[in-house]
C-alpha cells in the first residue's frame, strides 16, 4: 500500500509536458487509425434546425446566413457553415450571407468559405447566393434590417450596390426572410433572438460553439430559437443528416479519445489525492 501511495504521490507531480503529449497523441492517432468507432445520432435540436431550413422552397426567398464568428471559433463553426451551405446549395435554396462579427474577420471567413462551397454545386453569385459584407454593431444592424436590409447594407462585400443584386429583388426586410441562421462564437446569437426574434418575429436558428450550447437551452425551450447546432458534434450531426460526412464527423473520433483521456486524468488525480491523504491520516 505504501508503494502504491508513493507511486500516486509522484503521479500527482507528473510533468505537464507528458500530459500535453498524451493529449496531442489522442487527437492525432484517430486520423490515421480510423479508431475509435463513433456513432452519431441526430439530436432533436439539430433535427429541428434541419427541418426548418429544409422547408425553405428552392429558388425562392433566401435563408439569411449570418457568419458571426472569428477564427478562434472556426474549428467548430466552419464545419457547420459548410454543412448548411451544402444542404442549401444541393437543394437550390438561395442563401443571403452577412456577418455581424465586429472586427470583420467573420466576413473574411465568409469570403473564403461561401464561394468555395457554391462553386462545388455550380451556384451563381448574386443569383443563388450573395454576400453583403459586415456591420460592426449587431444590435443596431439587426434592428435596422427589420425595416430595410438595403439601407443596412447599401453595397455588398465586393462593392456592388445591393439594389443591383438579382437575389435582392424580392427581399426588402425580414418579412421576406423565412429564417436566419446565426453562426456565432459569442453572444451575438442572443442579439438575433433579442432584436430580430422578439421584435420582428423572425425564426432564429443558432449555430454555436459547444461552450454556448448549454447557455442557449432556455431560448430553445421557450421557442425563441427553433433549432440549435452545437459545437463540432452538432456539425457532425448535421453532416449525418444531409448524408455527407466531412470535418465534423472526422473529428468525433479524436473528440471521443480525448474526452476519455480527460475523464481518466480527473479520476486519477482525485484517486491520487484521496489515497495519499488517507495515508497521511487526514
Amino acid at each position, binding site marked *: 500500500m505504501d508503494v502504491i501511495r508513493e507511486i500516486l504521490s509522484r503521479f500527482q507531480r507528473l510533468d505537464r509536458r507528458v500530459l500535453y503529449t498524451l493529449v*496531442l497523441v489522442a487527437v492525432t492517432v484517430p486520423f490515421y487509425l480510423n479508431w475509435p468507432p463513433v456513432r452519431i445520432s441526430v439530436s432533436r435540436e439539430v433535427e429541428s434546425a434541419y427541418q426548418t431550413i429544409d422547408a425553405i422552397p428552392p429558388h425562392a426567398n433566401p435563408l439569411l446566413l449570418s457568419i458571426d464568428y472569428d477564427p478562434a471559433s472556426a474549428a467548430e463553426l466552419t464545419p457547420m457553415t459548410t454543412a448548411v451551405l451544402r444542404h442549401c446549395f444541393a437543394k437550390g435554396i438561395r442563401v443571403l450571407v452577412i456577418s455581424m462579427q465586429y472586427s*470583420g474577420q467573420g466576413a473574411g471567413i465568409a469570403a473564403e468559405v461561401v464561394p468555395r462551397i457554391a462553386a462545388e454545386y455550380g451556384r451563381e453569385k448574386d443569383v443563388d447566393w450573395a454576400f453583403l459584407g459586415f456591420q460592426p454593431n449587431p444590435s*443596431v444592424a439587426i434592428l435596422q434590417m427589420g425595416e430595410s436590409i438595403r439601407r443596412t447594407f447599401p453595397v455588398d462585400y465586393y462593392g456592388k450596390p445591393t439594389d443591383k443584386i438579382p437575389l435582392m429583388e424580392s427581399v426588402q426586410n425580414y418579412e421576406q426572410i423565412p429564417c436566419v441562421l446565426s453562426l456565432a462564437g459569442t453572444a451575438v446569437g442572443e442579439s438575433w433572438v*433579442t432584436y430580430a426574434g422578439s421584435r420582428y418575429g423572425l425564426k432564429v436558428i443558432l449555430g454555436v*460553439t459547444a*461552450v454556448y450550447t448549454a447557455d442557449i437551452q432556455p431560448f430553445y*425551450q421557450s421557442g425563441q430559437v427553433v433549432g440549435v447546432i*452545437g459545437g463540432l458534434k452538432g456539425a457532425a450531426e448535421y453532416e449525418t443528416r444531409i448524408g455527407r460526412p466531412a470535418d465534423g464527423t472526422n473529428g468525433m473520433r479524436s473528440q471521443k479519445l480525448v474526452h476519455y483521456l480527460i475523464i481518466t486524468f480527473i479520476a486519477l488525480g482525485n484517486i491520487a489525492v484521496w489515497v495519499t491523504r488517507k495515508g497521511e491520516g487526514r
Partner: protein
Amino acid sequence: MGGAGGTDILWTLLAGAITIAIFSFIYRDNAAYKMAEHIAVGLSVGFLVVNYYYNVFKPKLWDNVLHNGQYDYLIPGILGLILFTRFVPKVGWLSRYAIAFYIGGFSGVSIPATLEARVLQQIEATLKPLVSLDPSRGLMANALSSLDATFLVAGTLACLIFFFFSVEHRGRVGKIAYFGRLCIMAGFGASFGFTVMARVSLLIGRVQFLTRDVVAAIGRLFGGG
C-alpha cells in the same frame, strides 16, 4: 486558400509554419511565437481598417455625403472625428459627446428588447401548466410531462432564490436556495462538459489542418501536381 496551384501550396505551407510557431509556446515562450503573434496583431489591425472603410465609412458616410447629398450624415462624421480628441488632454473632454451619443443609443435600444426577450418571454416559457392531461398521450407520458413542468417552475424559482441575497439563506429559504445551488452546480457541470468539447474541438481543427492539408501540400510540392 484561393489562388493558382503553386501559390496555393505556398500559402498552405506558410499557414502550417505559423501554426507550428504558435504551438511551440506549449514548450516555452520563444521568438517564433512572439513574431507570429505580433505579425497577426498588425495584420488584424490592417484587416479591420480596410473592412471598416469598405463596409461602413465609404457606403454610409462618404457616399451619402458626397454622392447622395445627405449632409446630415456629417453629424456622425464629426462626432466620430471628435473621438480622436482623446489623444489631446486639453480638449479630450469633447470626446464625451460622441461617447454619450452611442452609449445612449445602444443603452436605449436594449431596454425594451432585453426585458422582452430575456425576462418576459423566459418567464412565460417557465409558467407552463403543471399538470399534463393530454388524452392523446399515455398516463406515463403525461406524468413525466407534469414532473418536467413542475421541476421547471420549482428549479427556476429555487435558482432565483439562491441569487437573492437580500434575505438570509436559513430555514425554508435556505433549503430552497440549497436545491437551487445543486441545480446550478449541475448546470455548471454541463457547461464544463461542453467547454471540454469546445476546447478539444479547436485543437482537433488545427491537427486536422496539419495532418491533412499541410501534409498534402508537402506531397504536392515534392511529388509534383
